[in-house]
């Protein structure tokens, strides 16, 4: 720590940190624009000026930018004591405002605008510039980002995030002097999967959320709750916001170990299905092929006819349903009759991950652990598409090794432009073996493309190169051997090596291979980081709940032993071949489906019950690293919609189960779950329980300044309705309640006096950029066993052998399109590539295919016609199909099948 005097008060500040960041951490208000806790300092905006004094006798001092000055012991600064500095900072804002429109009342950013806050903070309030303003033309940047360049104050944060940090290529600073333009070389959709962060990175309203704009509400009028993104297995923390019963906005919610300051566009914009037409709001019964709405009594009559004490019930849960819903279903049907909804393939993969985790000594890596690693091996995962936030962390990790030379030159890491200059585009070791090229290629040291088994063999070989005890692999090509040698050397030379693999290629040997590499490193006393990407938001959790696979559940249903099957939030047609899924509906069995929206399974069910979407429910998800995190209901659900677990509990009444009465709140389910499922011990602690009270009562979901609550129902009833009760959580559907800062797991908005924008997050951390005050939320359910005596996995797979005329079809994932619910949102749909067949150009030549041709393939008994996309990075002999796309649902990949033939010309 360094003793630093600010305005005559001495502070202990972290030595070497930049003064701005350190001072903000102490709660001192210094205005700023171009600095960002994750992007560092560049000294462009000149807003954070302070006066630095050489020594005690220095009275004149020197104007410096606090973001560019390291905290050094014995230094002295004036922040507010010096009139001239205060005036300079006011002048900087005055300059910025010379061209900024005075459109705050109609600007989307108004009310949560960093520029507004800084203008108030610097005291600039009267415009003396009497000349005209410059104006720009705006660009169409796609379905998600609105562009309003007139508001730009040229802080350069957008391009620094988009290009420097996130590796984007199509957003640039153009032109110069007071006419710098931030945009694309031509209109068009921003290409980066992380473009949505521009909304939060931009200190004013240049980049705003187009989906939010279509149903805009001021920040203070939003009802918000802390939530967890359901888009993939990362478990990024989000804040979801509502008004008038509509989910309107998803923002990043800081989590130090996971998403930090950024989320991906699937997570931010993939929420619109919640407001879509396809939502189910009332229980409906199939009657002569059509559904009819049921009254409460009719539902009761139907259920008492079909579920009675002693009824044989089958349950199918889901990897995207909460632990609570899955557990409730398991309790209803009994664990022998319960499927967790994972396909056999996913079930095997997840069991394997859990088994490895139970015995493997490597650290169970968080996203931050990956970001802090200085050499990384990726086996199989196209992270940008299967775990986007981890891909962003990985990109940052490649800066760690070159940064050592920067530090040696005594250039602080936070001095962003200088540090990037000094590393001069050098990337640290990142070795990736994937089916085809990825968006991380530009920072990848070496890459090899192959089929999943090839990749697994590489992993085994790297482990063997690190430790001769690990099984050897024969028959590697020269390129593969070179990759193995280089990767092994890099991992061995690293201070913190990381290995990432996962389930997206449906190859269990990849998991073992990654474990072998991590084990070889751990045995050399390296703090090896091991991460496995899981298939869905709660795949890890459902695997821990256990149960039979989807396929076995369907088999069981067909035995005729069951009276009814209850399906919770699982569209079988997304995961299984239609022919297999169909067979469930063929027998006498009554199918009760509980879900938030219509879909192929709901369409075929006998009874459908409307479940709350994530924004209308509470629940717990377990992310890829086994961290249980709670998401909270944002607003009371419409009509008959309720959480899936509550529907299941209601069914228990008809089965005469005791839980029907015992389970009144979410906490009751949590406690029961902790008691019944050993692996879920501690899950209740993921967030404070319903009984938790901050000083002053429940934590309000609405802001204290929410307006019009008393008038919301005025067109129906003049007197105000009593706010809905929330028995499940310590949050209230109200603006009344505790005014204190809630614990991190319940934090639903960032606001501090003088700080209305997302920048106020600084006030919720002990140290800016560090963990949330009170600890980051969630509870880890999986502990590495430390020094367990595990040995290397020995079953090296044989390389894939194809018979003549066959080709191996591999699964290719897409951040926009492979996750069905987000993919159903119009904006995400527009950014999805659409179904295609990826082939190597050499293969295409052999098969007489041109780029853009329609090719025919026969897969799992289906005939598919798809446009051909040349993908030179694919290994010849393999072809790729996009996962989850229309027509490809439930495809079992990888699959060897006959080579494509030419269909109709496009």
């Amino acid at each position, binding site marked *: 720590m360094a003793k630093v005097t600010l305005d005559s008060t001495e502070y202990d500040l972290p030595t070497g940190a930049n003064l701005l960041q350190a001072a903000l951490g102490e709660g001192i208000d210094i205005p700023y624009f171009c600095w960002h806790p994750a992007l560092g300092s*560049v*000294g*462009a*905006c*000149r*807003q954070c*000026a302070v006066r630095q004094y050489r020594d005690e006798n220095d009275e004149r001092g*020197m*104007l*410096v930018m606090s973001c*560019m000055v390291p905290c050094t012991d014995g230094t002295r600064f004036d922040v507010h004591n010096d009139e001239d500095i205060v005036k*300079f900072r006011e*002048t*900087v804002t005055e*300059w*910025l405002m*010379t*061209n900024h429109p005075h459109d705050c009342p109609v600007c989307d950013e108004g009310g949560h605008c960093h520029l507004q806050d800084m203008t108030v903070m610097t005291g600039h309030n009267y415009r*003396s*510039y*009497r*000349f*005209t303003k410059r104006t720009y033309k705006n660009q169409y940047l796609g379905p998600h980002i609105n562009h309003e360049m007139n508001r730009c*104050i*040229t802080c*350069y944060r957008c391009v620094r995030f988009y290009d420097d940090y996130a590796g984007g290529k199509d957003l640039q*600073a153009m*032109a*110069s*002097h*007071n*006419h*710098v333009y931030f945009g694309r070389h031509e209109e068009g959709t921003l290409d980066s999967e992380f473009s949505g962060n521009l909304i939060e990175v931009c200190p004013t309203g240049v980049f705003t959320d187009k989906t939010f704009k279509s149903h805009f509400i001021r920040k203070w009028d939003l009802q918000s709750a802390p939530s967890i993104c359901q888009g993939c297995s990362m478990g990024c923390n989000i804040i979801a916001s509502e008004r008038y019963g509509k989910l309107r906005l998803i923002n990043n919610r800081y989590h130090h170990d996971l998403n930090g300051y950024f989320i991906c566009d699937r997570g931010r914009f993939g929420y619109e299905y919640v407001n879509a037409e396809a939502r189910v709001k009332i229980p409906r019964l199939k009657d002569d092929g059509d559904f009819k709405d049921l009254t409460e009594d009719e539902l009761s009559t139907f259920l008492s006819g079909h579920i009675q004490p002693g009824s044989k019930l089958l349950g199918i849960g889901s990897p995207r349903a909460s632990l609570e819903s899955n557990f409730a279903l398991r309790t209803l049907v009994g664990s022998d009759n319960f499927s967790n909804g994972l396909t056999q393939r996913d079930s095997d993969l997840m069991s394997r991950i859990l088994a490895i985790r139970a015995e493997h000594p490597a650290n169970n890596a968080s996203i931050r652990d990956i970001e802090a690693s200085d050499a990384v091996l990726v086996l199989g995962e196209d992270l940008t598409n299967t775990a986007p936030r981890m891909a962003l962390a990985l990109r940052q990790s490649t800066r760690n090794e070159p940064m050592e030379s920067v530090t040696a*030159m*005594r*250039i602080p890491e936070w*001095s962003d*432009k*200088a540090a990037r*200059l*000094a*590393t*001069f*585009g050098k990337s640290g070791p990142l070795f990736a073996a994937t089916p085809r090229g990825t968006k991380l290629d530009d920072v990848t040291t070496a890459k090899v493309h192959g089929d999943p088994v090839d990749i697994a063999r590489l992993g085994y070989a790297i482990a063997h190169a690190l430790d001769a005890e690990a099984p050897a692999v024969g028959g590697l090509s020269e390129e593969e051997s070179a990759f193995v040698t280089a990767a092994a050397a890099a991992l061995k030379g690293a201070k913190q090596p990381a290995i990432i693999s996962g389930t997206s290629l449906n190859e269990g040997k990849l998991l073992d291979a990654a474990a072998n590499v991590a084990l070889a490193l751990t045995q050399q006393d390296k703090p090896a980081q091991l991460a496995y990407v899981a298939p869905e938001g709660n795949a890890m959790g459902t695997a821990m709940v256990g149960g039979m696979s989807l396929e076995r559940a369907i088999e069981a249903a067909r035995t005729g032993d069951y009276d009814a099957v209850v399906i919770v939030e699982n569209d079988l047609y997304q995961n299984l071949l239609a022919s297999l899924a169909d067979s469930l509906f063929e027998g006498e069995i009554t199918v009760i489906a509980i879900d938030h929206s219509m879909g192929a399974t709901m369409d075929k069910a006998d009874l459908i019950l409307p479940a709350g979407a994530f924004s209308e429910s509470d629940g717990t998800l377990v992310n890829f690293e086994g961290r249980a995190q709670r998401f909270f209901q944002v607003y009371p659900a419409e009509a008959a919609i309720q959480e899936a677990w509550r529907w299941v509990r209601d069914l228990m009444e008809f089965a005469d189960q005791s839980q029907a009465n015992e389970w009144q709140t979410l906490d009751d389910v949590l406690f029961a779950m902790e008691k019944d499922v050993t692996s879920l011990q501690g899950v209740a602690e993921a967030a404070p329980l319903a009984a938790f009270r901050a000083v002053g009562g429940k934590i309000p979901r609405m802001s204290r300044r929410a307006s019009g609550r008393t008038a919301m129902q005025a067109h129906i009833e003049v007197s105000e309705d009593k706010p809905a009760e929330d028995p499940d959580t310590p949050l209230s559907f109200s603006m009344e309640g505790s005014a204190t800062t809630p614990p991190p797991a319940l934090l639903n908005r960032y606001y501090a006096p003088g700080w209305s924008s997302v920048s106020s997050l600084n006030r919720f951390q002990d140290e800016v950029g560090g963990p949330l005050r009170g600890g980051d939320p969630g509870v880890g359910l999986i502990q590495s066993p430390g020094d367990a005596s595990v040995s290397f996995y020995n079953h090296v797979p044989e390389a894939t052998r194809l018979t003549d005329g066959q080709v191996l079809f591999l699964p290719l994932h897409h951040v926009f399109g492979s996750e069905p619910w987000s993919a159903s949102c119009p904006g995400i749909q527009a950014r999805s590539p659409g179904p295609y067949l990826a082939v190597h150009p050499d293969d295409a030549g052999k098969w007489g295919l041109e780029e853009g041709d329609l090719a025919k393939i026969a897969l799992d008994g289906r005939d598919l016609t798809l446009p051909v996309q040349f993908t030179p990075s694919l290994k010849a002999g393999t072809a790729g199909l996009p996962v989850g796309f229309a027509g490809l649902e439930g495809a079992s990949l990888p699959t060897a099948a006959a080579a494509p033939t030419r269909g109709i010309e496009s």
Partner: protein
Amino acid sequence: MSSPETKPLLSYCDPENPMDLKAYEAVGGYKSLHKALKHMTPPEVVELVKDSNLRGRGGAGFNTGLKWSFVPQGDNAPKEKYLVCNADEMEPGTFKDRLLMEGKPHQLVEAMIVSAYAFGATTGYIFLRGEYKLAERRLLDAIAEAKAAGYLGNNILGTDYSYELVLHTSAGRYICGEETALLNALEGRRANPRAKPPFPPAVGLWGKPTIINNVETLSNVPHIINNGKEWFHGLSDSNDGGTKLYGISGRVNTPGIWELPLGVTIRELIEEHGGGMRDGYKFRGVLPGGASTDFLVEEHLDLKMDYDTIAKAGSRLGTGTMILLDDKTSVLGMVHNLIQFFAHESCGWCTPCRDGLPWVERVMEALKDGRGSPGDIETLEKHCRYLWIGCTFCALAPGAVEPLKSALKYFREDFENAIRPAPEPADGSIRAKARQGLLEALGQTN
């Protein structure tokens, strides 16, 4: 007395018909190369130039040899090192480098080889102002000739020193004269100045050690090597070594450019070399070192044009090419013209420069047209204060306000006379005031 001994730079300099390689060699050209490469070690060259007290002629006046000594050497230093010649001469009123390049291109080529040898540069770049088409052609010819003669390429003069020289023509921005912005431009990036540290001698072009020197600075080096440091000191009438190219633009009888001992007085320059003021024009002030230096006035005419003397008087020697202000030219018009240039040439990186200079430009435009408002002078003064060194990211804005700052000091009445008194609002209401403000902004009277 125009001899190579007293006027090393401009002797044999002929923009109409510059010497080719043969002619240049005949008058001693490339001699320094033989001497340095065969008889001197690189550190000896650095020492010699350091001791000669050759100060940078681009405006900053830093000791050239000292700058070279900052380049990391030895086995651990990067093998690639670069010498960049800053030939992006865009300072309004400055045309000295152009003369050197058009009239004596081989001198710069020789200088760039021998200077590169001093710190082991592997490649040299001449970053040339895009509009200098003639200089481009002549330099390209000179480089080709030098290459053919074995002065460039592998194993120069049979030694183990190898070096390539590349001419790069700028796409054209004044800020490219700022050495780190120049490096960015040369790499194909936006021409924004870089954060320092790291400084170019450690991390420069393509991340490698790089020295950036001005054309005139480099052109002195062969002569220092040939004639020694004492000779170089002797050329000067000041503490700093060498001659200087001095220029005058403005209403003198014979505007032009001359090579003179460093330290000639302003009066001698105007009277003897510029031939005095033209009939009917009186001297009013002078920007001694180009458009980004402070005005000096009558009382300063006997000051020596060297780095320290001019700095003590509150201005800068800059490029040594002065712009005269006479009594028939509008100070306001001149300052407006300069500010307009600088505002347009701001790279747009830091707020004060990007948004402050256009404001100053607008105010100066109003003043120039007699549309000044009460408070304008205060606005200008505020900008002079807050566009100063430290407030901005680089030196462009501080340089830009130097003429303004000094004009406010020496010619304040011109500014005051351009301000119209505030018209009395019809009534004190906010609406009346707003209307008034609108009319003023539109430049109309009530």
